[in-house]
């Protein structure tokens, strides 16, 4: 499907950039005039993936996160969130609800479940020692489907 718009953003893995990342992706998606609910779902999924990169990927010691967003002619948003941190040993286990390697940090292992619930597709590519790439897609509605309000 034809690409209609895109951007790539590189940010340091600082926790204060979590809200920045959410807002940037939401602003990009808003050009389609999606519903408030869709925007909130995208924001939440982005927050989960970016937070995982900061906490798990880089162990809160910094590093870089690359966010690539693409819009296609069929109104599909694709968000790719990439880190070059420690990677994930067992992907299947990591995606299970309630599985976390960091209960000590009050994590509850729901991040991937939330991403899967709020986006249409979530795929994870990871190699221990090399990093993790999370690719998520979601088909958004457009204003033509009935005048929505947007919110950033």
């Amino acid at each position: 499907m034809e690409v209609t718009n895109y951007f790539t953003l590189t940010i340091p893995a600082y926790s204060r950039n979590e809200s920045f990342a959410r807002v940037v992706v939401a602003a990009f998606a808003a050009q389609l005039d999606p519903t408030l609910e869709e925007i909130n779902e995208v924001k939440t999924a982005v927050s989960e993936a970016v937070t995982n990169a900061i906490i798990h990927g880089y162990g809160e010691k910094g590093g870089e996160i690359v966010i690539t967003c693409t819009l296609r002619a069929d109104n599909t948003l694709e968000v790719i969130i990439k880190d070059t941190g420690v990677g994930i040993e067992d992907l299947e286990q990591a995606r299970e609800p309630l599985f976390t390697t960091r209960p000590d940090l009050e994590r509850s292992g729901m991040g991937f479940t939330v991403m899967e619930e709020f986006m249409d597709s979530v795929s994870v590519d990871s190699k221990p020692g090399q990093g993790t790439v999370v690719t998520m897609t979601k088909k958004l509605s457009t204003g033509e489907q009935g005048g929505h309000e947007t919110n950033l």
Partner: protein
Amino acid sequence: MKITKQQSGDILVVGVSGELDHHSSALLKSEIGAELDKGGVRHIILDLRELTFMDSSGLGVLLGRYKELGKWQGKMLAFGLQPVVEKMFRLTGLNQLIPVHPDLASCYKALGV
């Protein structure tokens, strides 16, 4: 994120406004922790009317405080959830541990006040 705290008897009402994520959750943890350390708090009511965003980090910090209250059989209740926050509560099952009420009065009533 902004936090307000108001105690009446052994009930602490905590208002959380803005966005609750990994970045802001540390503050909520320490603000509630400071009140619990003083002693005298048995139950917590969360006023979430102004909370516009919450992800799994918010879930983690609320669960953590819920467990602390459990040490003395204290309860945690919430009211005023916006749809996006309510969805997180439902999806993660948090609403089964932290009952969601329509308003403050109904929270007090549930605590027998």
